[in-house]
């Protein structure tokens, strides 16, 4: 689905060396799991319960990558 493309691209960029990712099912689980975790953290972020840096850390990405990811998904990048 289109809304998962940004997540898919990020996972591919960061973990493309992993053999398991060659399996479409494993890859799909990863993408959907990552996206679900992102959305859970995003809810905390917009409520001001966690910072953007915390969100990024929990996903194993940098704050810059988190910003870019939220922007690509059309989500708010600020919790002000």
């Amino acid at each position: 689905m289109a809304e998962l493309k940004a997540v898919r691209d990020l996972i591919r960029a960061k973990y493309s060396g992993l053999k398991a990712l060659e399996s479409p099912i494993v890859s799909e689980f990863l993408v959907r799991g990552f996206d679900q975790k992102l959305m859970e953290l995003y809810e905390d972020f917009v409520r001001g319960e966690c910072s953007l840096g915390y969100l990024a850390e929990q996903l194993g990405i940098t704050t810059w990558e988190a910003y870019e990811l939220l922007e690509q998904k059309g989500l708010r990048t600020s919790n002000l």
Partner: protein
Amino acid sequence: MLRFIVDTNALITACKFSVRGVPVIKLIAGTCKLIISTSVHDEVVSTGDKYPDALVAKELIEDGKIEVRGVELGDHDILNRYKLGKGEKESIVLAVEMNENVDFIVTDDRLAYIVMTRMDLNTMLFLDLIVTLVERGMLTRAVANAIVKAVEPRYPEGFIYHTLKILEKGARRWLS
């Protein structure tokens, strides 16, 4: 020269937006001392090759326009109970350690802002850094206005309107 500690969130604001093709960070880097912690620096380095915005910060660090300060992030019971990232926690520790050797700590993250304020640190948003530079005569009002309009997509409308009013009136306490 004013000294500001900036966390990644504020650094992204400064690097991502430009005025007439010049990244905002380059417009302010020469007017004040910008300081970042090690992990904020590490994120810039590890991301710099992928994003042009981070690359701008990387270049300014290499040119010595942004100072990187090492900080020992111990097992801080209070900070660890907030859902902050390492960069935000390090920035807070750095501000506490530098004490009077730093003027302000800058963040655009709500939780980080609240924790910094509760720590009695001189905390400000990136927009207030711009206002402060104008107040201290380090930045012209025209450039400041252009910067505020450039970073507009980053903030809810009220923050931008209020900042433009502050710049126009020359004082912060305006209700309408």
